[in-house]
């Protein structure tokens, strides 16, 4: 079986669904002839034709708005926003229309679209190319927000996103695009949505993260295991709607929770997870919940981005703090 990078897995999922379902169309800036600036859509235009792989004008409002019209008329558009920093003109369309159409029409018109976009920092990118603003989107009712943390999950979750009957924001951790390879069976099997993935079991502390930060989180878990500390590592994967039950079940076992995300701290998704665990699992907690996050600052340009992003040392320190709490 082939070992794929995350970006290759995204490409395989797109190819699979386009071959299986003629209603799937791809649109975005540079997704056609060029195959996307990260090559997520490489070869699609050549294989499926320019009428199914649309190089759009440079207009993000249009990309999202047009995908809504396509979806309402029965297509399955998979639109790419080139970088998350350019998604904000599309926010109006997502918030006011894509997520509301089903409810407004009592199910008469629906909006099965996928909006893919690179997410997060750590790739020495120019300004506006490194932010992680998922919490802006997890606040939107009616939206699904997904983020894979490995090639196999990218493949399976993207298939699930395309087949889902509702709008999905599919965040792709840019830093992981080519960082790791993994065996991915290109068999068209989707992964379940609205559920966390427990990547590693452990008795002492629950580490919850998503996207690229799981790379550091798993590395921290490795380092801590050498000191006899057993971490349970959870990949949230579907950021909205949130599968709090899996996280709560783990916390009830370990009694300790550390949440890791690269987005800024205040109002980040970690705050929502912490609040829900506080509401439902307070008596299971043996220590205050810790959050290891980016800072409440502007994401710095790349000379300082490592100082912004959580790393193994910060995660390990937070874990030790929960273990040492008296």
């Amino acid at each position, binding site marked *: 079986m082939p070992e794929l990078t995350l970006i290759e897995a995204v490409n395989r999922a797109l190819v699979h669904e386009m071959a299986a379902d003629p209603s799937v169309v791809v649109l975005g800036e540079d997704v056609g002839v060029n195959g996307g600036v990260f090559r997520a859509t490489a070869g699609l235009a050549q294989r499926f034709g320019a009428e199914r792989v649309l190089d759009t004008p440079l*207009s993000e409002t249009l990309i*999202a*708005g047009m995908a809504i019209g396509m979806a309402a*008329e029965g297509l399955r558009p998979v639109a790419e926003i080139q970088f998350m920093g350019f998604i904000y003109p599309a926010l*109006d*369309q997502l918030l006011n229309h894509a997520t509301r159409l089903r409810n407004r*029409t*009592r199910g008469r018109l629906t909006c099965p679209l996928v909006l893919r976009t690179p997410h997060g920092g750590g790739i020495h990118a120019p300004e506006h190319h490194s932010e992680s603003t998922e919490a802006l989107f997890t606040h939107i009712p*009616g939206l699904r927000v997904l983020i894979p943390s490995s090639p196999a999950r990218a493949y399976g979750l993207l298939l699930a996103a395309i087949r889902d009957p509702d709008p999905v924001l599919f965040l792709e951790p840019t830093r992981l695009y080519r960082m790791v390879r993994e065996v991915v069976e290109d068999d068209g099997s989707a992964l379940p949505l609205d559920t966390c993935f427990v990547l590693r079991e452990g008795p002492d502390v629950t580490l919850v993260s998503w996207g690229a930060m799981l790379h550091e989180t798993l590395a921290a878990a490795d380092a801590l295991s050498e000191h006899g500390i057993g971490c349970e590592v959870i990949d949230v994967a579907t950021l909205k709607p949130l599968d*709090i039950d899996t996280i709560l079940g783990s916390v009830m076992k370990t009694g300790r929770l550390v949440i890791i995300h690269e987005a800024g701290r205040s109002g980040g998704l970690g705050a929502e997870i912490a609040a829900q665990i506080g509401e439902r699992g307070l008596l299971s907690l043996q220590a205050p919940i810790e959050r290891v996050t980016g800072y409440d600052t502007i994401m710095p340009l790349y000379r300082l981005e490592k100082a912004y992003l959580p790393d193994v040392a910060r995660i390990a320190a937070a874990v030790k703090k929960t273990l040492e709490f008296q």
Partner: protein
Amino acid sequence: MQQSVAHFEIAYTQFLDEAGRTVQGFPEGLRDPATLRALYEVMVRTRTFDKKAIALQRTGQLGTFASSLGQEAIGAGVGAAMRPEDVLLPSYRDYAAQFSRGVTMTEVLLYWGGDERGMDYEKPRRDFPICVPVASHTCHAAGVAFAMKYRGEARVAVSILGDGATSKGDFYEAMNAAGVWCLPVVFVVNNNQWAISVSRRAQTAAETLAQKAIAAGIPGEQVDGNDVVAVRERVGVAIERARAGQGASLVECLSYRLGDHTTADDASRYRDPAEVEAAGRRDPIERLRGYLLRAGHWSTADEERLLAHAAAEVDLAVTGYLALPALPPESMFEHLYASLPQSLEEQRRAVAAASDA
């Protein structure tokens, strides 16, 4: 030394002038008196509805309502030019077009009366609901048109927007894409001269709104939007052009918002009453009635019959609207997703329990 590299002009069409006199012969297909009477009837039914809706709002039986007073010819012309299988993407002042397509008066009342069921149209199942964030639906129209073209269907998307909406980027982005891909979509601008309190002149320095199409590489033209014959004819040409695979176009319909922006607005704060009075003399309904009467295609008895019929229709719609009880509170969860995520079950149950108590 410079040379001219491109030439543009904006055509203007009118068949019936302000006094209801023909300024040119009616086009083929609009000479049949029955066709003209049908257009007239839609406009009168719409105005009867409009007046009743305002009265309901004033008496606390309807929420904020946006009147289409004085602009009925635009919707009537657009509605008549479309086929049932086409898709209308309306703004919030396009009742005449919606009624022509089978949206019911009860549905429109439900919408402004605070009930989502008012957007679950029984008849035009593919039509979009009223769009409140102006111009944002023009991008949807491009997507709908793309889907039609992609499947090789001879269908057309028609989006109606206001003069204010032409200042938004969405509108340019939609027209631009429609031009690039030669999409079967028609953008109809209801230029009623006022975007709440901002006048047409304060909205843009452009001489016409139609010329905004030129920048997108699609044809743009102007019609007298209070002349239903002109609207029906030119929007019809644009729709059939799109249906024939020749792409998108824009029709700017010159009209006037005789009423307030909505029932929550008071236009006397910012408009000269003389201007409104002058605009009232260009009324689309009186204009066509004058013509029909003089041509012998309409009588006082016809008029009385129509008004009585429209009043009865509106009364029936109001009865239907007022008789329909609100949905149970937990219905707000019903169409949030295709199936409710597990994580929302607790909230749904809490709402249901609170409403049972």
